[in-house]
């Protein structure tokens, strides 16, 4: 009886652990051969707003908390990715941000925000530059603005430039 109970408990524990692992926001990497530019996503977050409290020290040593907020357009959310973009091939083609898009389950594409420099203020730092990349490796955060409804379903990140076809499943 006791052994059965322990086995059940162990089973529940294993199931919980599996669920916990499955719920983590880690993207599924789809390796693609012969890439010129490689994108690797280490984590991502979906936020309906960003807030940061800045502690401003006063003359008497006390801290005045100043709150900063940033919100997406109505009906949208921020998809914030931490990624590494690396030149791994031998061609000299640049990494062009217009070919890096997030796709939702309906096949709609969303480009990186034109100006996501606010990320630095909300501890998503460093931010990857949005300039065209030519060489080297760049790690940091970037932001997409996507419909809130789309954020609840399948999302993939694709880079579709010549010689660098890549698809990363962010969430199923």
């Amino acid at each position: 009886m006791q052994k059965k109970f322990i086995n059940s408990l162990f089973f529940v524990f294993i199931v919980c652990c599996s669920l916990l692992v499955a719920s983590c926001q880690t993207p599924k990497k789809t390796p693609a051969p012969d890439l010129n530019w490689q994108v690797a996503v280490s984590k991502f977050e979906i936020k309906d707003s960003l807030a940061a409290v800045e502690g401003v020290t006063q003359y008497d040593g006390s801290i005045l908390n100043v709150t900063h907020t940033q919100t997406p357009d109505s009906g949208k959310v921020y998809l914030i990715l931490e990624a590494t973009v690396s030149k791994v091939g031998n061609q000299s083609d640049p990494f062009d941000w217009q070919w890096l898009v997030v796709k939702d389950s309906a096949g709609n594409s969303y480009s990186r925000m034109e100006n996501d420099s606010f990320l630095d203020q909300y501890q998503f730092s460093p931010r990857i530059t949005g300039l065209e990349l030519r060489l080297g490796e760049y790690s940091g955060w970037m932001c997409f603005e996507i419909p809130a409804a789309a954020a609840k379903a399948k999302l993939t990140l694709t880079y579709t430039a010549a010689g660098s076809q890549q698809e990363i499943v962010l969430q199923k």
Partner: protein
Amino acid sequence: MKNKLLIIFVTIALFLAIAAGVVFSGVLTIPTAASLAKATEVQSYDILAAQYQRETDILADYGKGNYSPQHPYIIQDPYQANPLSALILFETTEPAQTTVTVMGKNQYSTFTYTSTGFTTHHEIAVLGLYAGQKNQVELAINYQNGQKEVSEQTVQTEALPYDFPNLKVQVSQPDKMEPGVDLMISCLDTNYSYLLDANGDVRGYFTNKNFGHCTAMRVLQNGHLLTTGDVLKLMPYNMYTLWEMNLLGKVFVEYEIPNAVHHDIIELSNGDFLATSNNAAMPQAYDSREDVVIRINRQTGAVTDQYDLRQIMDEHRGPFTNYTPGVIHAPNMDWAHLNSVEMDAADNSIIVSSPIQSTVVKFNADSRQIDWIISSPEGWSGADSKYQQYLLTPVGENFEWSWGQHAAKILPDTDNDPNTTDILLMDNGQARSFTQDQSVAPADNYSRAVIYRINETNKTIQQLWEFGKELGSSAYATFLGDADLLPLTGNINIDFGGMLRQNGVPVDNIVSGVIGKTQVRSRVVEVQPGGQEVFDVSVTPNHTSDSETYQVRKIALYNPSIEYALGASEGQRKGEIQANSPTTYKLPGFFIPRLTVSFKQLYQQNSTLVVEGNFLYQNQAYALGKILLVLKNSGQQYIFATNSGLNGEFAGRLDLSGVKPGEYAIYVVGGVVDGMDALGKIKPGYNAAGYKIDVK
């Protein structure tokens, strides 16, 4: 029974003795393999080597393709220093000369540069791109055989950073302005240095906020830009290095200056530099700062002469200033705060400005004898009455003395009188009095640019021109600022650099502004000699407290020094590297977890460790503190003092040459001084910093 009690007592005593021995031996702070594994490795970095590698990588990448004028290789922000710049590379089949044009909104904001020779390999710097736009860049190729070719390119840039200051242009008459761009130089490390065109649009900015702190940036005879580098010796702007660089961010020469440089640096006619500086032993072994002028040999980088103002003026003269809070027994007395230096080649003399003393002093470079002092007659009594002989007598109408002034510069001779010298300076007007009870309130005060004519024979001073008083307190800048005569138009560029404001009202709390507790705004005005404004831009903070403009410098966006060959050679390093040697300090035997440390800079450069950071003591910033870095492993420990600043700041460069090779955990020890006496007792803390270093 008694024996049993005795045994228990002895056992407990023995146990306590062993425990105390263990605790106080420091064995508890020896890093374990697990703690080292978790710590972040300190990276090696050398800007000269890194930039050379970058150039080599660019050329290698370029070599993988075939690039022509119509299909050039474009790399934006090639040195990761100025995002509004790019390099364009291509080959031509025949030798050709190129003209690059960065299209602007009008003729005054369109920039063109033609290369000096005919080549088949082309490396073209693109400067002056707009932010957040598809920029049109035209390449005109003129072949030696007479053929011409034009190539239109588009360069998309990013928007300005979220914390870039707000710019409000109130006047812009480009046809009446001096050609070029305004280089807006920052003072504090929360602000950017950037380029403004005649329309007030940003056409370049440096992402590194750690260089050129509160120090002039000047275009040298060779076309390079000279300013301070990014290794801090002492807060908030005494920098160990000088950079000879360009607007792409490429550093051609790094000069190591043990004295550290602040505020001003000029190039002499023979190419050497003259800079406002310090005694090299400051701050650890010299009790004052910012009171020495140094001469730097351009070829070697060595400091070849020092002009110590303590041997020329009285460091104990104490006018009222707003450089508070007063710190009892301040470790480094800032009695002079020299903020400009000028060489008068006519009589081999040096002119320096001391805003704290509200004096401009001219002295002979050989004898160190004073020629004259621009100063109100207030405060030259008692022990200082001996200086009265050097004070100038005002003549003429509408004369006013300058207070807390900046940027005293000799103007070209206009009266053909060898006995006179015209001086242009920025009269900040701080306090406008020697004593606090007579000082002018900020809301009633003003700042101005002023030209004085000094008759050196008669020892008189006359006010020739002024601008700024009419703006009243709206442009009152307690500190920082500049005034430059512009050579082509005769206009004067005026920088009201440090306008301290609380709820929009002028205030005078300089230190509060420097450490980010009071908002600092600025305003730059270009005026014609008659006083008509042709450019006026107000700068206000955006997500920070600071939008100061230490100086403004009108420069040409392009000059021939922008032509150089990528990968030809690594930048040069000259001068003498100074770094703190290990010191002694009685380390606690166990951690006292009261310090929270964050590093702005922490990297290994050759045999030194560059450090710049902030600490909190029990989650609170204190005015005075002291931080030492401890390198420790199971067999060795080395303790290094850093140089302290206000409000939990610390910085320095540590000498690792005597450190035995191996992996070390980095700890911080020290703490805060209770009260405002720098010599007071330190409340200690002792923490792991979360970093490790592999010393080779």
